[in-house]
């Protein structure tokens, strides 16, 4: 069965005063039907931009999608213009997005109900009454108490967790095939984060769609994702099943990320190993490994070239010259 979404060699650049930033530099990935995929990386690694680009939400200028294919249900979405009818029929209906900050992504001058019914009446062609009824049902499903009353509230009358739940309701309102959740819980407290994620997973199970979770929180993807892509400096540096990436990480960056965070279940007293230096400037990147300057294994690496993504296991890929083994990383 072909994957639901297949992205091939996607490239996105931004024009800035200082030069052209290669925010996404040739990434390829796929998402199968009813699959939960995690996309992990630090801020500025291109994880959000790559997701915005798949549904052409990059504003031009300054952004440009300079290459690649986004094949969804057999058609290449990049063949359509961003404002074409074809793209509009896909956005919100077949692929929808949950944004990071619910306060800034909801319009403060329209009620929650207005904003949910807008999507519903546009894509499902329901009349106002039916659309509102559907919106109330959705709000109930995501656990908003008193949904029939709260639907006429404005975003500021909702708490952070409730806003994000309203965003989930909006995202699943037209039974999309794919939901992209971009840092869905970053601004939330840990208990609210757990609530929102559970609601999101329950909705995904209910409508049998696929989900991409974009996050910097390794714990969140460990809990929910089946497959994981790790991004660094606009590229995918490691890809594999959740077990591969967490229990047998092969890229020095993935290993370093795992070693740099304290874990709730580890014996205390382990010295955290920070990653020194900063992510590289994405303008005029030299054709060498982007992680080289921060890599703890750079001394062992003799090659000056940019590594390719190579296969190291059944579904496990890594972009590194060195054959790192998980055991040598000392976290296992």
């Amino acid at each position, binding site marked *: 069965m072909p994957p639901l979404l297949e992205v091939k060699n996607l490239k996105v650049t931004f024009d800035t005063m200082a030069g052209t930033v290669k925010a996404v530099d040739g990434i390829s990935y796929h998402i199968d039907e009813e699959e939960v995929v995690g996309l992990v990386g630090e801020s500025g690694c291109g994880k959000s931009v790559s997701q915005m680009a798949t549904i052409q939400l990059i504003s031009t200028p300054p952004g440009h999608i300079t290459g690649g294919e986004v094949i969804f249900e057999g058609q290449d979405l990049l063949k359509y213009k961003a404002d074409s009818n074809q793209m509009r029929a896909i956005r919100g209906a077949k692929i929808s997005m949950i944004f990071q900050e619910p306060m800034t992504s909801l319009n403060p001058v329209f009620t929650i109900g207005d904003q949910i019914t807008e999507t519903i009446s546009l894509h499902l062609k329901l009349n106002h009454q039916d659309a509102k009824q559907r919106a109330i049902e959705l709000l109930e499903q995501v*656990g908003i108490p008193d949904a029939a009353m709260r639907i006429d509230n404005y975003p500021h009358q909702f708490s952070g*967790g409730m806003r994000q739940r309203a965003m989930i309701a909006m995202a699943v309102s037209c039974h999309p095939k794919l939901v992209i959740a971009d840092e869905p819980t970053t601004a939330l407290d*840990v208990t609210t984060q*757990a609530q929102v994620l559970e609601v999101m997973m329950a909705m995904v199970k209910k409508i049998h769609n696929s989900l991409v979770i974009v996050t910097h929180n390794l714990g969140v993807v460990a*809990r929910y994702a089946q497959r994981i892509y790790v991004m660094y400096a606009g590229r995918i540096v490691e890809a594999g099943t959740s077990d591969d990436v*967490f229990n047998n990480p092969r890229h020095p960056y993935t290993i370093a990320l795992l070693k740099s965070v304290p*874990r709730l279940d580890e014996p*205390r007293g382990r010295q*955290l190993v*920070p990653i020194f230096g900063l992510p590289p400037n994405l303008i005029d990147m030299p054709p060498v490994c982007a992680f080289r300057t921060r890599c703890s294994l750079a001394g062992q690496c003799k090659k000056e070239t940019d590594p390719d993504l190579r296969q190291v296991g059944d579904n496990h890929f890594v972009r590194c010259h060195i054959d790192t083994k998980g055991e040598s990383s000392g976290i296992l």
Partner: protein
Amino acid sequence: MESSKNNNFLEVKNLKMYFPVTRGILRRKVGDVKAVDDVSFKIKQGETMGIVGESGCGKTTLGRCILRVYRPTAGQIIFKGQDIADIPSDKVLELRREVQLIFQDPYGSLNPRQNAGSIVGEALKIHRLSRNKEEYRNRVSDLFAMVGLDPEMANRYPHEFSGGQRQRIGIARALSCNPSFIVCDEPISALDVSIQAQIINLLQELQQKLGLTYLLIAHDLSVVRHISDTVAVMYLGHIVEITGWEELYTNPLMPYTKALLSAVPIPDPSVEKKRERIILKGDVPSPLNPPSGCPFHPRCWMAIPDCSKEVPPLRQISPGHMVACIRV
């Protein structure tokens, strides 16, 4: 001055901080937001006390009361044997030489028009801690080196630094007048994952080297576990559980603590599959209109009718383990 200097470095007794809620043009007082309500705890010298809780639980207000940014409504804050809860504002300046703050947001907390050197050295001037220019310059260089920054960078402005470096400047500023106690208010939550470890390690290293005592306010329970000796869990202005870190993380008693701990994801799929998850219902109630009795009872799965009758006091369950719950 009392002679309690040996065991208790800081003792907070029944601290209350109420913010009045006013209405109308006469600003008539109609109620109180009880941001911190009857909080008591002790910190020993050289230790780290972690305070965890959701946003709005009063953890930052508590920290600011100790720094005397606010004058508490009631209660005592005994710092090195002296009650600082009610000292006049001119004495507060003296207190600040001993008690300092590291802020959450390394972007908002540094003045963009001041260069890094003068940000770090400002307190030295205010407290007249250096006798001449040379001494001032040496001290600023020392502080830069202490937090792992190149003293050459003192002439640069905040926008020229990365987030992690800015937080280091914030730490150098807090250290400038040799404080013995530092309130760290979410010191790493605004930083990238790969940078967080650097700052955590730096805080630990400075504590060992300078014998600092920390009050660490954070919502990341794994970070609090990593560096705290004692941990207090706050909910709606109350401390609901307080004990040593090991006891709290292996034997949490208060249902809220259990829920908080189960909500923290662990970056290991095999561990995650086996974990029991407690998902709380609803949101934190408004502190303007808190529930009667135990503040947590509307969301608690163990609640019984008695829970809504009165606020449960913190009581000792085992040595050093205090819980405010009648179901324990």
